[in-house]
């Protein structure tokens, strides 16, 4: 039922989701930590920006990305000037888009998890000799592991499922920017219901399985930590 090019598409989708998850894990964890701990007044502004993709139509984000990453855009033009290549319709461009688009799904669960750790626990860690970075590694991260796992799964799944941003900046290029959601859209448009159904069904089962894993793991943590 699946053809070789479908496998390529699945590969691109998985790679995009994995890279996005890793990037957001690396960049989102410190951001979430900072948001959970800071008393700075401007924090609400940062929080609003992080949450923006939740309410913004993906096409709006896609439009701005196109304008920014393309050969005439601020970023794209700069890259071109220094002998690079602009990022529209490239895998790198998709990663940037996906990271922005999935930002709240990565940051919010982690922020909530960090904020749920009592201040006492950190004070105690300080009095037994743990410096700030030590506390982050040995107290914050292990205690927030549920939130971090949730963030990873949501980011991965959300990236697999994204459509609007890809539609705008992806270009639907096989092997590079054609992802599952685009392929399904294409098959439906071509009235190829067999393959549209196969990919849609696969995605449905995958998403369901992922969420079941998240809920099951969370339940186990609950039982351990009570």
């Amino acid at each position: 039922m699946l053809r070789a090019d479908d496998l390529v598409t699945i590969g691109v989708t998985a790679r995009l989701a994995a890279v996005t998850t890793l990037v957001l894990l690396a960049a989102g964890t410190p951001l979430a930590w900072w948001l959970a701990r800071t008393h700075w007044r401007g924090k609400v502004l940062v929080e609003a920006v992080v949450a923006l993709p939740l309410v913004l139509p993906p096409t709006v984000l896609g439009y701005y990305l196109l304008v920014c990453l393309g050969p005439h855009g601020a970023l794209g033009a700069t890259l071109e000037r220094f002998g690079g290549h602009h990022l529209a319709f490239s895998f790198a461009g998709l990663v940037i888009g996906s990271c922005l688009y999935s930002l709240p799904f990565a940051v919010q669960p982690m922020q909530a998890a960090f904020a749920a750790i009592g201040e006492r626990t950190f004070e105690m860690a300080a009095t037994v000799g743990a410096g700030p970075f030590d506390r982050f590694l040995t107290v914050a991260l292990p205690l927030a592991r549920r939130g971090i796992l949730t963030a990873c799964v949501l980011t991965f799944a959300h990236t697999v499922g994204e459509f609007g941003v890809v539609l705008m900046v992806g270009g639907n290029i096989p092997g590079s920017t054609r992802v599952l959601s685009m392929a399904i859209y294409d098959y439906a448009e071509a009235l190829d219901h067999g393959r549209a159904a196969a990919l849609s069904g696969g995605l449905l089962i995958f998403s369901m399985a992922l969420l079941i894993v998240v809920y099951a793991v969370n339940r186990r943590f609950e039982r351990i930590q009570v």
Partner: protein
Amino acid sequence: MRKGFLGLALVLVALLPGGVAGAEELVRVAAAADLRPVLPALEAEFAKVRPGTRVEVILGSSGKLATQIENGAPFDVFFSADRALPARLAGKGLCDGPVQLYARGRLALWNGREDVSRLTLADLKEKRFRRIAIANPEHAPYGQRAREALQRAGVWSVVQDRIVLGENVSQTAELVESGAADVGILALSLALTPELARKGAHATIPENLHQPLEQGYCVLKGPGGRGAARAFVHFVGEPAARAILRRHGFAQPGEGSP
């Protein structure tokens, strides 16, 4: 332990190789949605002529594809459903060589539930056609021509409120095929596909009701090898390709309707 495994899996997936890299030449063809049925046959024929060159097709409405090209999409050739859009790209210096006509498209009325071959556009006034699908005239040439034809047939003011828009002409066919719309004005090339023809006969819309759907292509200053792109467009002008186009409902420049 389990967390380490999860992280490792993520990293491995992230390191998956990208596209199917090969030694073969690649030509990326951005094509208007009305060409969807004809492209597999053209690709197959081209593979005989020039084995070792892979054709990658990206379909969409002509307007959307042109916008993407203007924003740096890495395509090598652009087959539009009109001649204005490739001309616009040429005007911006994005093309390598002049715009060439390769086909003339036709509009067809189809609904997939009945034989509509005796219907005319005037019949669309009937109340039973509650939803009439056309491609979006904003950026799809087939949509512009469909609107023109409805205006010329004198029914536009009556049916205007019943029009639903497909993103491109291919999606318009999907709207009708799914039953969401009661009838649609499609590209003849789509109505001729086995999938659609099986479900109901179409009516070809007289060409005098609209500006001719002259379709042009241009070779782009894309990232790929220009040689492969040239070979492909040259092939499209050859008799074998012209025959395939004709068979799929595209009149050839300077010829009558198929």
